[in-house]
């Protein structure tokens, strides 16, 4: 079984070129950084096509092309390094299983992103983390009414937001809020896309996002106070 290990160069390493299985990837000499050039599209398409036939080397190339975005996405969504690694692994495992089914209706990176988000969602749901109250969200609890945060630009937030406090505040958001906040405000998804992914209404997505922002604002306002109290 010594040869059982898949013969794949670590991604991001230059395969000592020609001895590798012949692949039409021309610019491997440029380790993993294909993104910019115009050539890259053709190359990624070719790599993708190869990976779809089961070529493990091509799959490794895809990994090295997309690992940063996917890992970062997972990290943002769950806010935990170990879990993000685990989810990234799961996402690429799923990719390996499903890659042959990719039909090119959307950009591959978009498709992969969706896949990764689904992996994260499934994990969160399995853990029973309330994807919340996506229903409750429609009728805010009394203390969560907009009026509570009404008024008061007493923060001087603009311009000087404490990174640590914000990090903490985002980490402390309920999982569902954080998901939508990350997907919309950080990843740039539209509400209709989020609604599809999370299987909720667009109105829900909007109100969740707003509530997430209000919670962050509240948190940023209370941290300094708590500290001052000591």
């Amino acid at each position, binding site marked *: 079984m010594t*040869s*059982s*290990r*898949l*013969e*794949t160069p*670590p*991604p991001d390493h230059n395969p000592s070129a020609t001895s590798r*299985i012949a692949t039409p990837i021309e610019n491997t000499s440029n380790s993993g950084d294909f993104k910019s050039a115009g050539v890259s599209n053709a190359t990624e398409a070719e790599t993708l096509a190869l990976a779809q036939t*089961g*070529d*493990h*080397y091509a799959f*490794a190339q895809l*990994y*090295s092309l997309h*690992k*940063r975005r996917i*890992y*970062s996405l997972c*990290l943002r969504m769950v806010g935990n390094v170990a879990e*993000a*690694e685990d989810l*990234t*692994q799961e996402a*690429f*495992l799923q990719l*390996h*299983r499903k890659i042959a089914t990719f039909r090119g209706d959307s950009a591959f990176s978009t498709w992969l992103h969706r896949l990764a988000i689904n992996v994260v969602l499934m994990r969160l749901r399995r853990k029973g983390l309330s994807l919340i109250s996506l229903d409750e969200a429609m009728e805010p609890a009394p203390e969560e009414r*907009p*009026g509570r*945060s*009404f*008024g*008061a*630009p007493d*923060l001087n*937030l*603009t*311009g000087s*937001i404490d*990174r640590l406090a*914000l990090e903490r505040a*985002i980490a402390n958001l309920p999982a569902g809020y954080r998901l939508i*906040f990350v997907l919309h*405000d*950080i990843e740039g998804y*539209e*509400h209709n896309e989020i609604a599809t992914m999370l299987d909720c209404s*667009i109105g829900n*997505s*909007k*109100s969740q*996002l*707003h*509530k997430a*922002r209000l919670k*962050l*604002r509240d948190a*940023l306002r209370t941290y300094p106070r708590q500290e001052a109290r000591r």
Partner: protein
Amino acid sequence: MTDTNHKMNCEEFQSQLPELIGTGERISDHPHLQSCELCSAFVAELEAIAEAARQLFPIVEPPDELWEHIEMAIQKEQNSAGQSGRPM
């Protein structure tokens, strides 16, 4: 009730915010904000938070050994699927 008029407008405006934020239109063009400093500041804060959050999460590199784990997992799956896992 004329006194509360302004306030009512603010509350109305703020209750519409979730909807407004989602449309992609520039909220700062909203008529209410032209005349209301309170809500302007409020919206500015929310936007500042979102902007700060974007900068908070740069694209980062996963650890190198992650690929090995993925490879092993793939291998394992292929083996248990009765395939040899032999590279073509």
